[in-house]
């Protein structure tokens, strides 16, 4: 992992809250996948969510832009509660960038079109302006030369960087990353993480579900540890990795940091 120093001072409490989850519950059949989740993310904060698989961290991430509905509780973004399915929700989703584990680039569109599509269809930006911005973003994530190719012609790491550019093109208030490097070959993980670290440095508000402990250490303001549908522990990365308070977190860390 490249050592990039990132300012990771804890954001002072009571600062501008961007994403607020209150008492959120969700069931998948008999499985209580989110249990009384309370989580507040301040503007400019980078929160990394870690935990064993099946702990509900992906569901938590997807609930924030209502790709998963919740059974009870409240989620609000920038002071506005998440609306029901419809135009209002679509408008809100445009302000929330999402990066998926499996990239989900539009397979029938070129790389450039992938990044302009949302601007043109949702933001109603003109085509020329959208392309200009798309090219700048593709350049920023380092795939400018691939603009006219189709997603299937790109490597996984390149596809994921395009997906990040696609999300950034909407000028989101917050970016959600749902295991962005889990489907990548090891050698491609870094190129994606570097883009994410750059974003964090630029002050983007980010919620990152990941297994990359190096990223959590270097880029996060706060680590949220989830297990069995609950938030077990919240701490700064230093505190969490060097001195976890809960037994569940100690057990988890001992398993993944051994090698």
């Amino acid at each position: 992992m490249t050592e990039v120093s990132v300012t990771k001072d804890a954001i002072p409490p009571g600062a501008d809250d961007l994403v607020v989850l209150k008492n959120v519950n969700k069931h998948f059949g008999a499985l209580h996948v989110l249990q009384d989740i309370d989580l507040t993310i301040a503007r400019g904060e980078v929160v990394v969510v870690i935990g064993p698989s099946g702990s509900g961290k992906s569901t938590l991430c997807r609930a924030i832009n209502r790709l998963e509905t919740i059974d009870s509780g409240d989620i609000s973004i920038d002071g506005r509660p998440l609306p029901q399915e419809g135009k209002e929700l679509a408008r809100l989703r445009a302000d929330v960038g999402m990066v998926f584990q499996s990239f989900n680039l539009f397979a029938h569109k070129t790389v450039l079109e992938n990044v302009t599509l949302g601007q043109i269809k949702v933001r109603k930006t003109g085509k020329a302006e959208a392309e200009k911005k798309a090219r700048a973003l593709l350049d920023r994530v380092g795939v400018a030369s691939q603009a006219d190719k189709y997603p299937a012609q790109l490597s996984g790491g390149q596809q994921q960087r395009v997906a990040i550019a696609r999300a950034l093109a909407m000028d989101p208030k917050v970016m959600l990353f749902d295991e962005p490097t889990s489907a990548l070959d090891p050698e491609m993980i870094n190129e994606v993480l570097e883009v994410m670290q750059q974003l964090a440095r630029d002050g983007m508000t980010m919620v990152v579900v990941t297994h990359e402990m190096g990223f959590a250490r270097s880029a996060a303001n706060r680590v949220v540890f989830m297990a069995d549908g609950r938030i077990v522990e919240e701490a700064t990365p230093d505190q969490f990795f060097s001195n976890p308070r809960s037994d569940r977190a100690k057990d988890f860390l001992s398993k993944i940091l051994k090698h």
Partner: protein
Amino acid sequence: MNVLTDNLSLFREGFIGTVELTVVSGIIALVLGVIIAAFRVSPVPPLRVFGTVWVNVLRNTPLTLLFLVAFFILPKILFPDMDSFVLGVVALGFYTSSFIAEALRSGINTVPMGQAEAARAIGMSFTQVMRVVVLPQATRAVVAPMGSIFIALTKNSAIAGSFDNVDLFNVAKTLSNDGYDIAMIFLWITVAYLVITYAINGAFRLLEHRMEVAR
């Protein structure tokens, strides 16, 4: 005496009649089919129910029965004095729309869930998700079954011929009443149908080929 050369204008009229019935009811079926398929995958439960009922009722009703409804019940309660061509294409179009909706739905199911999720995540409405992202990708998988549906529609249009529409089937009846050799009539009528169905066949093969290149 020769059936074809003696009655060339009648044959032409029948041929054009069949083509018109097929094309117009095909367009109706396509438009309705897309709408019903969208209903069936929509997030709104009442629309899903409507789509399911539409498909199940129309697909499972014999076409002749639909024609009887269209010609003898519909005019009584809704549209008196409606043109027999209009009634014919409505019956054919509605019936075929249920098959198109199902073919489209199976096409939609071939598009990975993540495509629609990514489109929703950048703020597209349901209509945009379908129109811009899902349907264009579903089309490829749908071309082959769609060809079969339109060929079946061409042959089904013969039923309209027995309901007061001049088409190839209707011409066959007329000529047979005129006393021509039935085997020769059927030979030429069959050739005329084959011309239409092979044209559809070719058009869809071309379409399939075109789409293969485009990705």
